[in-house]
């Protein structure tokens, strides 16, 4: 029996003790090999959920397991298993892509040879070969997104968390990134993805969860959900379920 990539059980979380709960008795399961999309309007709790799953935020209620390991008790094992591509540029702009990957690779406990081989492979796939020795601060937004992605997948993670990985990039770069993510998934990486770009989500995800006010209001494969609710796209599905457009909900 396959161990789920992510298993969240009865999660409760609030930013402060007095404040209202963002999540209460929240449960979710993502199976290994899925391209899972987490969608919802601003403030729905997507980024908070992502931060909880990656260990950036501590929680007191419930449990989160990554590949069968509870993140509370197996911090280092879990962190070794997943990769993370945050929404913000998460690298050192003063360094080159090659230097960034060398540093982050060492922190992923990869050896020098492995880092070099994998870096060359990623520069080739993401078309960063010609700029790999230039300082990142001189790059365009699209190229920076690619560097951000390259660092997240450097150690060939079993699970890859992607928080708005294509925000602010042109259509061509978005297409390249989505294609690469699909390739990664084909090679066995489970994708946990969140975005405002619903058309992009439709192209990438084979399973989705719609979150509204910290609750899952829809959870299934995109095709099944569209068929079940007789909708043609995610936008329509969201309006149908909440009664409001995606951006206003």
């Amino acid at each position, binding site marked *: 029996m396959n161990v789920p990539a992510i298993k969240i059980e009865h999660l409760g979380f609030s930013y402060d003790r007095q404040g209202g709960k963002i999540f209460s008795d929240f449960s979710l399961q993502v199976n290994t090999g899925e391209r899972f999309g987490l969608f919802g309007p601003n403030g729905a709790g997507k980024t908070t959920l992502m931060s909880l799953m*990656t*260990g*950036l935020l*501590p929680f007191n209620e419930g449990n989160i397991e990554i590949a069968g390991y509870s993140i509370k008790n197996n*911090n*280092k*094992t879990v*962190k*070794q298993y*997943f990769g*993370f591509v*945050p929404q*913000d*540029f*998460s*690298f*050192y702009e*003063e*360094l080159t892509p090659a*230097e960034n990957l*060398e*540093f*982050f*690779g*060492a*922190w*992923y*406990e990869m*050896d*020098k040879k492995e880092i070099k081989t994998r870096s060359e492979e990623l520069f080739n796939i993401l078309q960063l070969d010609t700029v790999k020795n230039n*300082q990142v601060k001189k790059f365009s937004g699209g190229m920076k997104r690619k560097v951000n992605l390259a*660092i*997240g997948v450097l150690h060939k993670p079993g699970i890859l968390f992607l928080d708005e990985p294509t925000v602010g990039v042109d259509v061509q770069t978005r297409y390249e990134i989505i294609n690469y993510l699909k390739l990664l998934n084909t090679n066995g990486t489970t994708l946990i993805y969140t975005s405002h770009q619903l058309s992009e989500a439709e192209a990438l995800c084979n399973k989705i969860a719609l979150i509204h006010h910290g609750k899952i209001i829809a959870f299934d494969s995109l095709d099944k959900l569209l068929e079940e609710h007789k909708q043609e796209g995610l936008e329509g599905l969201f309006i149908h379920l909440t009664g409001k457009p995606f951006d206003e909900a």
Partner: protein
Amino acid sequence: MKLAATIKKDILILLRDRVGLLLMFLMPLFLVLIVTSIQSSTFDIVGKNRISVLICNKDTGRLSKDFVHALDTSGMFKLTYIGTTVTSQQITEEIRSKDYVAGVLIENGFSGQLQAAAKQTSGKALQSFGLEGDTTTASMPVGENTLNLYYNPVIQQSLKLSVKGVLNSAVQIIQSRETLKDLYFSINEAPMPDSLQNEMLRNNANIKEIQVGTGNEKIVLNASQHNVPAWTIFAMFFVVMSLGSNIVKEKSSGSFIRLKTLPTNYFVALLSKQITYLAVTFLQAFIIFFTGIYLFPLIGLPALQLPQDIIGLIIVTLISGWCAVSYALCVGVFAQTQEQANGFGAVSIVILSILGGLMIPSFIMPESFKPLMAISPLHWCLQAYYGLFLEGGTLRDVGINILSLIIITFTLQAIVLLELKRKKLI
């Protein structure tokens, strides 16, 4: 591997921050150069840089000329003469407008007054020997002000007292000479020979200067020897501007979010920063000392003389650097913004350097402030350096300073670790 890669990353980032490098290496050099140049001029005041004094001699007697000659040959003053018709107001304006340190106005009657005083003294002396002496007063009563000292209000009290001391000394020599001459003439009814006069007035109690130190080596005390170690310490602690804000920048950047999701403890990042910036402080000290030894003589400043205990110097430099880095880490870990780190860092280093005796000598500090010196790491660094540079001591002689520095460093490190633990970063 992780630590080596992190150190490499930190060094690369440091090397690419040209403004930061200028702040850390060039600014301290300028600081040392400027302060040493200025202080060197103060040190040389009795040597080549004489105090500029305005002289107005309204007296026509012989003794006022002797007095001015005595001032001129004291080696302390550069005298400028002004006409005898000037008023007190004009002297004041002249001092203020032309930056004289002081002015001396010798009123008419100065010679007469001194001669009268000398006559009185010799007369009393003769009477006490049972001989007949002249004790009549001269035209200008003794005690009348015939010598006036004008001084620029910007000069320090100590300098004013020095000038006044030289004037008093010159007056006393002239008056003593006159008294002796009178006595000699009264007894021998012939003028006193110059050779005897000089012999009687010669200072036979030569002052032997003994420099207090712990080592055997004779160290020439000069502005470089005082200032280079002091401002090297200041430069080392000023890494707080770079390291403190570097930590805050990393904490608030996206890269920190990623670091927190990696299977490596953030302690590695802090350890790397400590090693990198310890190397920076050591390099700062090396460059400043090198400049003191080789560049200073080329621009007319006294050369820095390194202590005899070079190993001791290296150890003191490393421990001072480590303490400086620990302080910067502490500021960086607690500060929320780069502005906080830079503002608090800079101001606190200036305060600690004042308390530590870098800017104001600790021996002239008010008693109430002296206990605060002990909490300033810069004080212990300075004492350790002075022990080596000025007193010719060895590592053993500055052991207490090193111990104090180690205690402060460990305390700062403990504070950093507790705060990181509280923030669940390690």
